[in-house]
């Protein structure tokens, strides 16, 4: 059966006993479980009962596939909330169609729920990513953002235009994924917006001092206890063509120099937001010339899954990006070349490009 399903395009894990199956699921949770009834030590019904008692595993769609045709067994399986009870002699194409239908229905339900929640969030004006990029006199800001498995997640982006001269660019990442992280991203973003505005009102345009203010308010909020975020904070001086940067446990900024055609990394010293009273934030000036491009990235950009193995590799990303920039590849093309089907996305993925015009 494993071979049949793999030929049909599914990725399968197989186990010869319930204990072995549970061990496999400790590491990786499947989208669907197909179980026989007769197995050594524990049978399929006992397996199903164990799954139903586990809050992480109970909602995974479950099918019994067995040679038993007795009504009693069928009813027992269905009473244990199995989606279906399939005979072992089912034609292969019917089995594949059944699995496809179940997975499609589950996905449609998920998409519908997400869509409803997104609609509510939009009505409440809860946006963690801007609708579009930004065009300034000397800079253009464009971005790519793809949440993990299409669930809203912990990455957040904002462009805060103070006046014709100064604009802040924000890229943050609440540690975690999906709804939990998404929910907190609004609180982080609200504090960041407020701290920036208040500092600017006081005439303070130092990104490291603004970062420290953000850290202070986050640290003081009990609601955010045990929730941490990384942040890249940029201030663009459009009049002078200057870029100032401070970071909090963020990934290095990548500057592509159009003349040398090389990428240079800018690493900050600042620590995670919301952990230490003094986050040791420092400010760096990013020297840039016409046609240089500065990239801000979240960790999902360098995380990927290839042939079932998850990896983190910033150098792989830098090499690929540098190669594409050397061929004068446009941003949209870059993102479609790098974030493609060959590398399965494993986290929210956000990439901001600031182009010096």
């Amino acid at each position, binding site marked *: 059966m494993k071979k049949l399903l793999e030929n049909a395009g599914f990725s399968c894990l197989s186990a010869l006993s319930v204990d072995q199956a549970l061990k496999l699921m400790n590491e990786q949770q499947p989208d669907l479980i197909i179980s026989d009834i007769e197995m050594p030590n524990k049978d399929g019904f006992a397996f199903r009962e164990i799954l139903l008692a586990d809050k992480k595993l109970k909602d995974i769609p479950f099918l019994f596939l067995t040679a038993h045709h007795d009504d009693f067994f069928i009813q027992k399986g269905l009473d244990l909330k199995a989606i279906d009870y399939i005979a072992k002699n089912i034609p292969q194409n019917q089995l594949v169609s059944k699995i496809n239908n179940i997975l499609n229905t589950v996905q449609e339900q998920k998409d519908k729920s997400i869509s409803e929640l997104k609609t509510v969030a939009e009505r409440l004006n809860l946006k963690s990513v801007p609708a579009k990029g930004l065009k300034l006199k000397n800079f253009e800001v464009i971005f790519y953002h793809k949440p993990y498995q299409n669930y809203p997640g912990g990455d957040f982006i904002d462009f805060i235009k103070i006046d014709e001269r100064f604009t802040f660019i924000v890229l943050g990442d609440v*540690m975690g994924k999906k709804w939990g*992280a998404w929910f907190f991203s609004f609180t982080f973003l609200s504090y960041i917006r407020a701290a920036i505005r208040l500092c600017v009102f006081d005439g303070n345009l130092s990104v490291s001092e603004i970062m420290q203010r953000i850290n202070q308010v986050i640290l003081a909020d009990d609601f955010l206890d*045990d929730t941490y975020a*990384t942040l890249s904070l940029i201030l663009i001086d459009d009049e002078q063509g200057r870029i100032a940067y401070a970071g909090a446990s963020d990934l290095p900024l990548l500057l592509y120099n159009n003349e040398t055609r090389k990428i240079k990394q800018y*690493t900050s*010293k*600042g620590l995670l937001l919301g952990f230490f009273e003094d986050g040791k934030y420092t400010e760096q000036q990013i020297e840039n010339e016409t046609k240089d491009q500065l990239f801000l990235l979240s960790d999902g950009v360098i995380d990927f899954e290839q042939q079932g193995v998850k990896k*983190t590799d910033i150098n792989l990303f830098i090499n690929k990006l540098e190669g594409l920039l050397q061929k004068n590849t446009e941003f949209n093309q870059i993102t479609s070349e790098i974030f493609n089907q060959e590398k399965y996305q494993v*986290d929210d993925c956000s990439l901001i490009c600031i182009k010096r015009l």
Partner: protein
Amino acid sequence: MKFTVQEKDGIHLITVQLTEAGLNHSDEFKAFLNEHSQNEHPKLVINLAKVEYMDSSFIGALVAGLKNVLSNQGEMALACIQKDVLALFELTRLDKVFKIYNTEEEAINHLK
């Protein structure tokens, strides 16, 4: 078992038995760390030798665990971090947040 614990000279040696430490296990791990840091001045050594990939959810659980340990005037150290995971910690300055040791013995000796 996803996580195991042994007690030795008042130090909890916690071993993460996962190769991929991510969202699916982060809440459970956070609760596990909290469970073993309830006493006054808790001392925890986390052995990460098996972990080949760690995502931000799991790092968040480690950070939350550290904060909890520190709030109880305790100490926590990480040991045997694989190269790729350590590179991520260094890249994001988390190596400045955690005490990191090459071996479990070094970590234990430091916390004694």
